[in-house]
């Protein structure tokens, strides 16, 4: 198979699935819809495997046609790059994507928007593929915006609910803020380097190494703002928790596994530039740490199962950002991959819980579900300990690698991340214990109807659980004596030194983290295992209030940006147009009118006045022409 065919096979099936389901889905039976929907990413997955086998690590660019041409050499091709980085991403996107598609068959089976949902999901996969395959910034940007669009559509999937709609447009608009920065960054890139494709950029920037060049700093910062929007970093992260309004598979696919990691992917893609700008790296690091900490602390006090997971996602994205800041791009990708496994698993598991409880999401209304949902309980356990970072699950290795990398890079970051991972363990165990242990705290009739998910849902869960369990094998640290497979695979695409630390440090880290996590496990199960999360006290402490209210960030944004803009809009609408501009413009008209009015008084109908005026005019003319 030639690369072009492979590319076509990867790229177009999801789009075809979207078109078929979107146009004809309403008139097709559900089984056909779901088959088409699931097979299209599966086909892409298969083609990705083919690409993995066929291309064997060679970076291949496939140009379809020239999209448009800018000035000079800036030619924007509609072209795609298949290298090892994109293959990793392809696997994640199509692999996890397929699983989630399958899961959705069961999850969405009762929904009237069944075909619509799958159409959107397929479209999302298409845009995500565009994003990861794009060989230049503009195609990447197309995918970037496209996934945002699908995110909008899927968050607001149940569009009867105005709250959901609000969340959807909030997500889109916030993403748009980042996208604007992204766009400007593209322009600046073209302006400074004249190139737009990654290959050219790579050549330009590696040939002419300029550390902390102001242009590069600006560009990299702007890209990072874009990343903040998409990957939910401070300050643009507030949309992600709200995005949980969408159906749970969406949260799993878009807002955990794939789309939100696009930012991480972008920076990894552009790693050659970020290597040149330590200033930006510092900014990314600080932002990442803050994000990891803030989100983790907020998650401590949340009671909505999906919100907890959402904040956890934000927090984990912070981890990845810090890894990027430390120059450990492959580590970030590693965490991205493992995170996509266990976070998808957690979300889908949560979905299973919600499904079983008929839409209940509040963990205070749960408890003791392990008796009725054994499968779910099992996979959730895997997911929870994977994210908490117990060895030898995937999360442990990737997080450990991040900590190792950061430790050698910046001690402050290290402490922050260590704290954040402790928090992670805490809130995850709190959630897990509240949901599955103790006694059921909801209504009795709900308890009656609690049931395990169908096999179409359970299957993907199991697969993901296996992946979460074994995902760590991709990147075993040096002390295990195994080779870091992901590193070896990605090194052609991402030039980066191997992460290594002294064995002593590694062992210490392992030991301490194991001890901390186990301690937390015990505390959490004791504390929440029986009674669930505590009822908020009547006089919550300042910190408690802060955490419950998510640091009031939404409110601050509302006050600081949205509200003033709204006022400005209203003011302009009511005063600006009619009050100011019209008045100014009409002023000369008024003058003419009043002048005309005055003049009309001259025209008083009296013949004697008329004659007099004429004579006066004659006199004036005579005088003028005698003088001049």
């Amino acid at each position, binding site marked *: 198979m030639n690369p072009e065919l492979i590319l076509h096979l990867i790229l177009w099936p999801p789009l075809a699935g979207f078109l078929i389901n979107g146009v004809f889905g309403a008139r097709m039976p559900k089984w056909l819809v779901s088959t088409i929907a699931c097979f299209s990413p599966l086909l892409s997955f298969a083609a990705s495997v083919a690409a993995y086998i066929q291309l064997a690590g060679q970076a291949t660019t496939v140009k379809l046609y020239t999209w448009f041409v800018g000035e000079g050499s800036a030619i924007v091709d509609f072209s795609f790059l298949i290298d090892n980085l994109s293959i990793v991403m392809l696997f994640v996107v199509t692999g996890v994507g397929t699983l989630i598609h399958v899961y959705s068959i069961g999850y969405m089976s009762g929904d009237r928007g069944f075909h619509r949902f799958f159409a959107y999901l397929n479209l999302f996969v298409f845009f995500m593929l565009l994003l990861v395959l794009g060989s230049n910034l503009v195609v990447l940007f197309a995918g970037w915006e496209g996934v945002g669009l699908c995110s909008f559509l899927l968050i607001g999937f149940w569009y009867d609910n105005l709250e959901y709609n609000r969340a959807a447009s909030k997500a889109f608009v916030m993403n748009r803020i980042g996208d604007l920065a992204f766009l400007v960054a593209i322009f600046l890139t073209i302006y400074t380097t004249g190139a737009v494709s990654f290959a050219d950029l790579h050549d330009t920037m590696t040939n002419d190494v300029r550390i902390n060049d102001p242009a590069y700093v600006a560009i990299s910062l702007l890209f990072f703002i874009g990343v903040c929007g998409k990957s939910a970093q401070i300050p643009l992260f507030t949309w992600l928790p709200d995005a949980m309004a969408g159906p749970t598979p969406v949260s799993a696919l878009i807002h955990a596994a794939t789309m939100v990691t696009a930012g991480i992917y972008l920076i990894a893609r552009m790693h050659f530039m970020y290597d040149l700008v330590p200033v930006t790296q510092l900014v990314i690091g600080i932002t990442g740490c803050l994000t990891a900490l803030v989100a983790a602390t907020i998650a401590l006090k949340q009671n909505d199962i999906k919100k907890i997971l959402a904040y956890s996602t934000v927090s984990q994205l912070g981890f990845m950002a810090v890894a990027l800041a430390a120059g450990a791009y492959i580590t970030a990708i590693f965490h991205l991959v493992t995170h996509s496994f266990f976070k998808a698993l957690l979300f889908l598991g949560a979905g299973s819980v919600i499904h079983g409880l008929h839409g209940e999401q509040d963990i205070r209304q749960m408890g003791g579900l392990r008796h009725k949902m054994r499968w779910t309980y099992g996979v959730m356990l895997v997911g929870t300990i994977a994210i908490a970072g117990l060895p030898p699950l995937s999360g442990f290795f990737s997080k450990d690698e991040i900590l190792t990398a950061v430790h050698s890079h910046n001690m402050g970051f290290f402490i922050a991340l260590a704290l954040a991972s402790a928090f992670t363990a805490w809130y995850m165990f709190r959630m897990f214990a509240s949901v599955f242990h103790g006694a059921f705290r909801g209504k009795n009739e709900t308890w009656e109807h609690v049931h395990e998910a169908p096999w179409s849902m359970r299957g993907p869960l199991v697969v993901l659980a296996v992946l979460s369990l074994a995902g760590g094998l991709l990147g075993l640290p040096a002390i295990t004596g195994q080779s870091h497979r992901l590193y070896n695979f990605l090194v052609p695409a991402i030039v980066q030194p191997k992460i290594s630390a002294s064995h002593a440090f590694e062992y210490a880290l392992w030991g301490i983290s194991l001890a901390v996590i186990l301690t937390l496990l015990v505390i959490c199960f004791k504390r929440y295992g029986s009674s669930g999360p505590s009822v908020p006290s009547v006089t919550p402490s300042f910190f408690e209030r802060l955490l419950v209210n998510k640091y009031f960030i939404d409110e601050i944004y509302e006050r600081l940006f949205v509200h003033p803009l709204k006022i400005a809009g209203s003011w302009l609408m009511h005063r600006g147009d009619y009050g100011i501009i019209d008045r100014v413009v009409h002023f000369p008209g008024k003058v003419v009118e009043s002048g005309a009015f005055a003049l*009309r008084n001259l*025209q*008083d*109908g009296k*013949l*004697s006045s008329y*004659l007099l005026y004429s*004579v006066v005019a004659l006199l004036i003319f005579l005088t003028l022409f005698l003088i001049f």
Partner: protein
Amino acid sequence: MNHIPEIIRTIPLSHYVALSSALFLIGLLGVLIRKNIIIVFMCIEIMLNAVNLLMVAAASYRGDSAGQVMVLFTMAVAAAEVSVGLAIIVMIYKNLKTTNIDLFDQMKG
């Protein structure tokens, strides 16, 4: 025949010009200040006569008959105007019962 009238030898033409101008201006003044439409009209006649005088003088001083013929026509015109004008005045008097020039102000603005 062709003897030069004494006046032409003694008085410069500019005096006639001045005289007729003065006459013209008196007529003009009358037109402007009088309210009775008939008097106004009469003042216009004074203006016309002033011009006539001017032209006759100029014609005489040059021995050119064009001016005199012109005056003849002017008189004819004046006569025609007067007749039409008085007809109009009579007509309007029938309707409005006034000859005050300032009272004809139905149309203005």
